[in-house]
């Protein structure tokens, strides 16, 4: 039986999504415990670049989530310590040629209707925004709502501000269920944590947690490499990436394919990321991934060709086959909630996810329609392993 020391909710996962869930649940008056088999930000969060992007999302439920998050991050930046390194730096998406620019225009049109601010930048004004940008580009779009945080700090500071009880280095070995099948807590290697609600914010391992609870949630890993340069003064002001228009003749649909995102950091290094590969949890170095990132970055910013790359690292983005996260209660197991499958956008989408989750836990009115993120939805067919060239 839960006693007076039992929390109202146990959150599995001390990454940025779990931290945001803890933060907003606590703000809603709930007592929270967070459990993770590793340290804070030990999974995808620690491998992320801290992208808070609206520019790369087409109109739809994910963009709505991103726009809400953008506002929430701005509010959070006023309360979280400066180490969070919130920078409302804006994004700049550039088009290498006229067809790409035309496609960007159409893409931005759809985004504007959804509430995104996107301003076209003619070719001769690109250098005003980014003096080191390569010459010869056709033009671009400026997205002032794009921003950046330092992901590990963001997760750690959100967790600290939540006041949640932290159980780090404890792997969840079982989801405890009552006689009616409802969740009543979790068991770790060290203890039982009893609570009437359990949140699966385990990121790439979300599918495993779901399995422990007896439900299917097809979270898959998608590997990404990031290059980190030597410390530099500010030479890149925005989040900058190039967009190419790919017409998928077979399906008649259009998709935006983008190159490496190049950005400076307050710490000094320029980050260049990230590749997307569906290769399972393969941890070996892909020199092909490094080559592509480096080549794309040097094409955008020729000045980078002569700087040293100090580090390359990889992470695994948790994605669901239909590329939308699972957020909210799982009707198959009363008391079980999910907040995972954010792919490469977990840092950006974390606060809105936390707010939706807190609303579901307390019965409050959600700030946007959670239906597209229902965990029990049909997620569609799983992708086949492949290597792509998009960010």
């Amino acid at each position, binding site marked *: 039986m839960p006693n007076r020391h039992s929390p109202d909710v146990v959150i599995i996962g001390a990454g940025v999504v779990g931290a945001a869930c803890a933060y907003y649940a606590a703000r809603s008056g709930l007592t929270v415990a967070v459990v993770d088999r590793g340290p804070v930000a030990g999974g995808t969060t620690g491998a992320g670049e801290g992208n808070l992007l609206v520019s790369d999302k087409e109109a739809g439920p994910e963009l709505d989530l991103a726009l809400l998050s953008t506002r929430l991050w701005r509010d959070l930046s006023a309360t979280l310590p400066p180490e969070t390194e919130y920078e409302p730096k804006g994004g700049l998406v550039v088009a290498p040629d006229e067809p790409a620019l035309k496609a960007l225009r159409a893409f931005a049109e759809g985004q504007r209707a959804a509430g995104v601010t996107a301003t076209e930048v003619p070719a001769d004004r690109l250098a005003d925004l*980014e*003096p*080191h940008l390569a010459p010869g580009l056709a033009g671009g779009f400026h997205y002032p709502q794009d921003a950046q945080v330092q992901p590990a700090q963001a997760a750690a500071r959100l967790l600290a501000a939540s006041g949640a009880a932290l159980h780090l280095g404890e792997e969840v070995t079982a989801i405890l269920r009552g006689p009616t099948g409802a969740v009543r807590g979790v068991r770790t290697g060290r203890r039982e944590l009893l609570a009437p609600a359990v949140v699966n914010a385990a990121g790439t391992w979300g599918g495993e947690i779901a399995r422990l609870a007896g439900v299917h949630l097809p979270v898959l890993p998608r590997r990404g490499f990031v290059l980190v340069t*030597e*410390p*530099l*003064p*500010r*030479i890149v*002001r925005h989040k900058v990436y190039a967009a190419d228009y790919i017409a998928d003749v077979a399906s008649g649909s259009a998709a935006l394919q983008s190159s490496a995102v190049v950005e400076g950091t307050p710490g*000094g290094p320029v980050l260049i990321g990230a590749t997307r590969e569906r290769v399972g949890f393969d941890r070996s170095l892909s020199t092909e991934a490094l080559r592509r990132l480096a080549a794309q970055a040097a094409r955008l910013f020729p*000045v980078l060709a002569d*700087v*040293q790359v100090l580090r390359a690292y990889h992470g695994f983005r948790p994605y669901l086959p239909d590329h939308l996260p699972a957020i909210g209660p799982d009707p198959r197991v009363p008391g079980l909630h999910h907040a995972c499958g954010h792919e490469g956008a977990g840092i950006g989408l974390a606060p809105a996810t936390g707010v939706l989750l807190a609303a579901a836990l307390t019965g409050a009115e959600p700030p946007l329609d959670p239906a597209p993120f229902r965990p029990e939805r049909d997620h569609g067919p799983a992708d086949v392993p492949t290597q792509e060239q998009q960010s």
Partner: protein
Amino acid sequence: MSRRTPRALVGGAPQETFTFRFDGRDVTAAAGQTVAAALWGAGVLAWRTTRHDGEPRGAFCGIGQCFDCLVTVDGAPNRRACLVPARPGGLVTSQEGTGHDDLAV
């Protein structure tokens, strides 16, 4: 009794000695010495300032692993002084911060 020196220990003499410019003065080097060795020989222990606190730094690990001895050589920043050979007439400049301040926008 003869004075003990590194040279007295190993004998011989360098093939040549020459000078390079370091922060506006001439530093004498022996052929085969690195920039760091020549600077040590001239009694110079620091040729870089850090990018946050502006602290002076020079050679520390001596084998190219610590990158504390970074210096600008002939205009190229972030060269490891403990690895770069000294060259006759070379231009060695103390490095401030990242060494790339010229790129800042």
